[in-house]
Structure formats: structure tokens, C-alpha cells
């Protein structure tokens, strides 16, 4: 009897957590949702509905439009397929390298291959320009210029190889080595082991990696626009063109619906296949060995050199090119000093008449930092209540989760288009840019905060209070240390996203409020050595800022590991 009594008291014991007071009231709980849902309704779903309405208006359904869509779609598929194939040509050997071999500097090289994935598209585009573009370090009359198209494909490979290494490499490393040994002892030679055992078991991971790479190539915007100009019209570039250069909003709306449908199909397929990938059994010991035979040594050495060169050269050539004068500035006459120069950086602080801006270009950096801070504030303010509610969701709230993630499926250019259609006249306000950035960052912020909030077991709070901690001390000693790390990580993430955001910003920006990526784009689109040099200088700044942020995130993730 007494035992029962105790249990009874236990369940009714007050919870010593500020926020769990909310858990009891249906009303206060829905208040949690108010801000994020309202935000998404106004800034995502409303524009989405407007785009859909416009896309299905009569003015959009013309034969010329359909022809354009078909040819654009064709080219988008073509370049994405080609990029994916090339990414696999480099990615599969690299995946084998990292899964099957141990060598000096392995983790460093692996980290290096992942760097591009975190860098803003403008930085990658600028980096490839600095290396092998028309004004690049390696541009000379002896080497034929790579075409814009091959530059685009190379940048895509640069970006996405890490996906293949991660997904396929991890699946390969997780493959039970006994299966291969069993197959060999049953009479299968190397070829048959691959054909009958390894490949079939890797199939889901190969498919998942291919889908993800394809999806990123399919929606690639910054790289294509900056390296190819408007000559290569993929869906994204075409939407941009139909908004700013050859205005035809119904067509732009129709294009973005087509784009959205494809992205959603790819995401659904991807989610399905990635779920199959995780069913592999984990081996008891690592398959990775030092390369032994001569063949293996040649393979490892060659690939290491190739990967290092491919991933280091563009990133190093960018800062070098930003400090090197290779050609005369526009309108510059007389003696030109080639070689080392800090002019491109100094020029950023000067507000020249007739330049691209009404402000000194460095103002773009100040704008970017301001927008990024606002984005951090907004996405945390909206992400916190949503993440808290989702950390212990009711059945209804589970239904809200995919809704909150939906903006991930929309491309940045599409978000910009939606804003233009919905808020056309008031767009002069610089506030729309951090709002657009928040839409992009919010899903990531919620995904970072939610597991941290959910990971705090009620037991911890209970034991802390049983040990004599006051409610405030409980929050201070239990909740805060866990949440603070995740919060800092989420904040840095939002900051990085905002710093590098290009697609939406390009559509929404006003000439007097450029951001760093916009400044880079403008400099690159103008002729002359000085403009190119300043683009390099700006991109170097952005690269440094982003790298710093990546380091912060990595440092925080070490003890708080989670998959994005």
C-alpha cells in the first residue's frame, strides 16, 4: 500500500523545469507555434501560393513558354547528369581510398575534401576563376582555356565529391569484411566479389549518393551563373533571367513550379534510399589497411596527390590571385606593375565615382555582417519555440514537422521570386534579405536545436533537484550547458548560411545595400583587371569568414555529434 502511494506521489511530483510548465497547457503550447507558423505562412506559403496561382494563369501557358521549359529542363538534366557522372568518376575511387586504406594524413585529406561543401557558391566560383578562368593564375597562351561549361562541371565535382566519399565510403567501410572473405573462400575472384557481393550491397548507398549529387547539380545556381554567365540556362538561371533580365514573371513562376516538383521527387526518392543504407551490419574491425602491393601503393599515392591538388589548388590560388596583378586595369595606361599588390584590398575601401556601387565596396562586408546577425537573431527566435515543441511532439505536432522543413525543397531563387510577386512594392526595404536568409537557415537551426533539447532526460533534472538544486540551478546546471552548445552551433550555422546566400539575395538586393556575394558577382561581371582583382579580394574575405565559422561549428560538434 505504501509502495503504491509512493509511486503515486512520484508521478504527480512537480517538474522543475521552466519550460515544461508549457507542456501541460494545450493553449500555451500552441502559443509556442504561433511565431514560427505565422512567419512561414507569410513568408513562405503565401509567396508559394502566389507563385502557383501565377504559374497556372493563362499567360503562363503559351507554346513558346513550353518550348523554353522543355529545352531548359533538357539542359538542366544534361549538365546535372554529366556532373554526377564526373563526380562519381572521382568519388568512387576516393570512397575506396578512404574506406579501405590507411595512410598518413588520411583524416586531414578527408576533411579537406569536405571543405568545399561548406563554402558559399560564390567563393567556389571565384576560386575556379582565380585558378583556370580567363584571368586566372594558369591562364596563359600556352594552355588552351577550359570552356565555361567544363569549368562549371569541374566546380560541381569539386563541390559534391565529398557526398560520394561520405555516403558510399561509409557504406563500404561498414560492409562486413567477412562477406568478402566468405565469397573468396567459396571461389569468387576479385571481379566476382565486386559483382556479386560488394556492388549489390552498396547499391542503396550508390543510388542515394547519386540522387543527392544529382539534386545539388540540378539546383545549382551560383556556380553556373558566375562561371557560365547567362549562356547556360538551367532552370535556376532561367528563373533568374525571367525575373531580372527579360522579365516574364508567369514564365518564371511556371519554371519554379517545375523545379519544385523535381526537387520534391528527388528528395522523396533520396529519403527512401538513404533509409536502406543504414541497414548494413557494422564490422568488428576496420577493413582499412596500409597499402601493401605495388598496385595498391600506386593507387593510394596517385589518388592522394590528385585529391590534394584538386582540393587545395583552387582554395590557395584565390588568396594568391587576390594579391597578384596579372593584367592592366581597365583604362590604365603606361607602365603596369605586375606581381604582388595589395591594391585590390585597398580599392575596396574607396568609393569611386562611376564604380559599381554608390558606397565603398567594403560596405558590402558590413551589410553582410549586419544581415547575418539579423538572420541569427530571427532564426533563433523562431527556431527555439518550434524546436522545443518538436522535442516532445504531440501527434498533431509531428504532422507540422515536414511543413517546417518544406522550405528546404524550394530553391533560393524561387524564394526570391516569391517575395517579388508577393511584396513587390515594399521590397525596397532591406529587411527582406535577412527574412529570406532566415527561411533558408530555419530548417537547419531547428534540426540542430531539437535533438539537443530532446536529449535532456527528465531524469537528469529530477536527480539534480533531488540533490538539492533549486529550479534555477537545475536549468543552469543541466539544461543550459547542453542547450548553449547547440545554440552556438545553430547560430554559427545561420550566420554562415546568411553570409554565403546568393540566389535569393541576387533577386532581392538593392544597389545601395550589396552583400559580399553580390559584390563578387558584380565585380566578376565587369571587365578589367581591377574589377577581377577586387572580386578575388572579396571572395578571399568571404572564404576566411566562412572557414572561421566552419571551424567553430566543427569544434562544437566534436562533443555534440549529430548528422545534418
Amino acid at each position, binding site marked *: 500500500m505504501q509502495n503504491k502511494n509512493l509511486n503515486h506521489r512520484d508521478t504527480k511530483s512537480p517538474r522543475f523545469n521552466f519550460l515544461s510548465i508549457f507542456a501541460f497547457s494545450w493553449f500555451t503550447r500552441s502559443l509556442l507555434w504561433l511565431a514560427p507558423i505565422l512567419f512561414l505562412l507569410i513568408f513562405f506559403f503565401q509567396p508559394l501560393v502566389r507563385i502557383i496561382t501565377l504559374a497556372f494563369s493563362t499567360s503562363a501557358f503559351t507554346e513558346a513558354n513550353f518550348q523554353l521549359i522543355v529545352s531548359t529542363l533538357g539542359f538542366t538534366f544534361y549538365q546535372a547528369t554529366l556532373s554526377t557522372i564526373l563526380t562519381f568518376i572521382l568519388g568512387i575511387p576516393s570512397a575506396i581510398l578512404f574506406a579501405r586504406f590507411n595512410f598518413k594524413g588520411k583524416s586531414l585529406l578527408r576533411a579537406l575534401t569536405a571543405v568545399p561543401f561548406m563554402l558559399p557558391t560564390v567563393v567556389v566560383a571565384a576560386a575556379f576563376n582565380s585558378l583556370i578562368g580567363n584571368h586566372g593564375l594558369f591562364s596563359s597562351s600556352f594552355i588552351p582555356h577550359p570552356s565555361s561549361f567544363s569549368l562549371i562541371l569541374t566546380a560541381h565535382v569539386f563541390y559534391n565529391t565529398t557526398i560520394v566519399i561520405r555516403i558510399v565510403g561509409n557504406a563500404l567501410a561498414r560492409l*562486413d569484411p567477412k562477406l568478402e572473405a*566468405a565469397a573468396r*573462400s567459396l*571461389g569468387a575472384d576479385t571481379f*566476382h566479389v565486386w559483382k556479386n557481393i560488394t556492388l549489390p550491397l552498396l547499391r542503396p548507398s550508390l543510388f542515394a549518393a547519386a540522387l543527392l549529387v544529382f539534386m545539388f547539380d540540378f539546383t545549382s545556381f551560383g556556380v553556373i551563373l558566375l562561371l557560365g554567365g547567362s549562356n547556360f540556362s538551367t532552370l535556376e538561371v532561367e528563373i533568374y533571367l525571367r525575373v531580372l533580365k527579360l522579365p516574364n514573371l508567369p514564365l518564371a513562376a511556371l519554371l519554379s513550379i517545375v523545379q519544385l516538383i523535381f526537387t520534391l521527387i528527388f528528395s522523396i526518392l533520396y529519403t527512401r534510399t538513404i533509409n536502406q543504407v543504414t541497414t548494413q551490419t557494422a564490422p568488428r574491425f576496420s577493413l582499412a589497411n596500409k597499402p601493401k602491393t605495388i598496385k595498391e601503393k600506386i593507387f593510394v599515392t596517385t589518388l592522394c596527390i590528385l585529391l590534394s591538388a584538386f582540393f587545395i589548388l583552387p582554395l590557395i590560388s584565390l588568396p594568391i590571385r587576390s594579391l597578384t596583378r596579372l593584367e592592366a586595369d581597365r583604362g590604365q595606361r603606361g607602365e603596369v606593375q605586375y606581381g604582388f599588390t595589395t591594391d585590390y584590398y585597398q580599392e575596396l575601401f574607396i568609393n569611386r565615382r562611376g564604380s559599381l556601387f554608390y558606397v565603398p565596396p567594403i560596405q558590402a562586408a558590413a551589410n553582410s555582417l549586419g544581415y547575418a546577425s539579423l538572420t541569427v537573431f530571427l532564426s533563433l527566435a523562431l527556431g527555439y519555440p518550434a524546436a522545443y515543441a518538436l522535442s516532445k511532439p504531440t501527434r498533431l505536432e509531428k504532422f507540422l514537422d515536414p511543413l517546417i522543413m518544406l522550405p528546404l525543397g524550394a530553391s533560393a531563387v524561387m524564394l526570391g521570386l516569391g517575395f517579388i510577386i508577393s511584396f513587390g512594392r515594399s521590397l525596397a526595404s532591406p529587411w527582406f534579405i535577412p527574412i529570406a536568409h532566415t527561411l533558408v537557415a530555419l530548417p537547419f537551426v531547428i534540426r540542430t536545436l531539437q535533438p539537443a533539447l530532446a536529449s535532456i532526460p527528465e531524469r537528469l533534472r529530477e536527480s539534480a533537484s533531488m540533490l538539492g538544486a533549486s529550479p534555477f540551478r537545475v536549468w543552469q546546471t543541466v539544461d543550459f550547458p547542453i542547450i548553449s552548445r547547440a545554440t552556438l552551433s545553430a547560430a554559427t550555422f545561420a550566420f554562415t548560411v546568411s553570409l554565403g546566400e546568393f540566389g535569393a539575395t541576387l533577386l532581392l538586393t538593392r544597389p545601395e545595400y550589396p552583400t559580399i556575394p553580390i559584390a563578387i558577382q558584380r565585380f566578376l561581371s565587369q571587365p578589367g583587371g581591377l574589377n577581377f582583382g577586387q572580386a578575388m579580394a572579396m571572395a578571399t574575405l568571404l572564404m576566411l569568414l566562412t572557414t572561421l565559422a566552419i571551424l567553430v561549428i566543427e569544434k562544437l560538434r566534436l562533443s555534440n555529434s549529430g548528422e545534418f
Partner: protein
Amino acid sequence: MLEVRDIFKTYDNKPLLRGISFSVSQGETICLLGASGSGKSTLLRMIAGLEFPESGQLLFNQIDLAQTPPHLRDFGLVFQDYGLFPHLNIFDNIAFGLKMRNISSAQINARVAEMMDLVNLQGFETRKVTDLSGGEQQRVALARALAPSPRLLMFDEPLGALDKSLKEDLLNQLRVILHKTKIPAIYVTHDQDEAFTIADRILFLHDGEIVRAGTPDEVWKNPISVHAAHMLGEGNIVEGRMQNAEGTRSVMNVETSFGMFHVICDHKHSKGESISLLLKQSEEGMDEIQLTVEDVLFNRDQFEVKTKSGLVIQMKDAPKIGQVIKVKVQVQCLT
């Protein structure tokens, strides 16, 4: 048939195998018994061709295997966690080795059916690997290894993951199958019960060396090696000092804290040398020792008695703590 000659192997710059030599003949089952990390699995992988010795030779029917890749050795291998192909059904798992040998599908069907009969899995052909219990999976693994009629079968702790009654059951089936097929086999385990059940000959592996080899009966009666005696866990090992040394196979006097023992040693010893003795509790024992009871544990039909000197003995009736008891022991010389 299989001959292993003086195999050396290091792992992480530490010696793992130091001069391993043994042979397996037609229809014989050899058991490698050793603690985990003693290098027994590595030895199997080398015989299978999945790893290579740093020095030494592997011969099968007098032919050196060094140049033969694993898939042409025609050796079967069965793992502890089965290593069944998760993407293939039971039939295709068993048929895998046959398909690699380009055998006609009619013959494959017949052979797989025969194997399914042998391991008692009739009707399981189209089942998924993941739907089977551990014991069933191990039977599939055995059938898969047997199907291509390998020249040699190797088992790497095949029953380690199974519970005790299932283990005994499968072990008996395996014994019958091995006798029926006359395929020479190497069975690796750390479980001496398994080893004594299945082996025609047991090799004790310790620190990369074979410290004792012989039939189950021989090694049980006379472990000879300190490590083998340790692994068997039967009797007490005590340290002593040699009092005289007059060549091999003669009676030696060994001084211990339990008194002077007279034993016959196979190896040559010098005077004053320290030596380990195995004291086995036995009614026919020639020597008697006195022990003080420290603790008594109930252990089924007898009592386990711990004594002040650290020796552990078994008794039918529980003595009192502090009581002095006399025990008859048989004394053997260990190396």
C-alpha cells in the same frame, strides 16, 4: 594433406605468431585452442589466403600455396557471425560457391537440395537470411561452405554466438557431418568443451606458439605446458625449486611450500632451477598435502574449498572455515 611450416607473423610490430608448425591429414579434425588475441583467427585467414605470413610455408598435398589466391584454394571457411550474404536468399547463399565454379544449374539445384537435407533446412530455400535464427544461420553457413566439396574446412569460433544447448546440438551434428564427408577440418575456438567434443587433435596456442599438442585424452591427462594447464583450469599450479638434476626421465626432488615432491620430468632441468608443478586432486595420488580452509563455496554436487595457500580443491562435504584438511594429489611436472 595440409602442412603448416614455421609460420611467423607480426601485428602492429608485435609478434603474433612465432613459428607455428602442424599438419592436418585426411578426415582429421584439428582444434586450435587459445585465448582471444592469441592469433588463431589470423592463422586461419592465412590458410584461407586472406592474409600472408611474413615467413614460413603453407603446403597442401606437398604443393606450396603461396601463389594460389584464396578463390582457387578450394578451402571452406565458416565464421562466428556466419557471414551470410544479406542480399541473397538461402538457396543463393548455398549455391554461391557452386555458381563460381560454373556448374550447370541442374547440378546446382541437386547439390543445394542435398546440402539442405544434410543440415536439416528443407523448405527454407527462398527465405531471407535475416529471417533465420542464429542456429539456422550457422547451419546455412555450414551448408554453403560444404556445397562446393572443399578440400579443407575451417571454422572460426563457429558457435561462439549461440547459447549452450544449441551449441551442443550443432556440435554433434557437425561431428557427424565431418566424419561422413571425411573432409579435413581446422576448428578454432577458445572454448575447451567444444574442442574436446569435436577434435581428433588439440593444439594449444599461447603467445603465438603451440605450447601443447595431442589427442583430447593425452592433453587432458598430461597438459605438460603451464599455459595448457592454465587453460584447462583443472588442478592447481604451484611453484617449486629443483633439488637435484640427473638427466631426463628420472625421478626429481622438487621443494615447494607444500613439502618435497618426487616427480618425473620429460625435460632436462638443472639444480636450483624454479619449476611449476601441477597438483591434481586424486584418490590414487601418491602425495598428500595439508591445507587450511579459508572459504567454502557451494557448487552443485560438491563444495569448492578455497585454502589459505591459495589452492582450490573440491570436496563432497563442506569443511569448517579454519579447519586443517589433508588432500591426496597427483603431481605432474610442467614446462
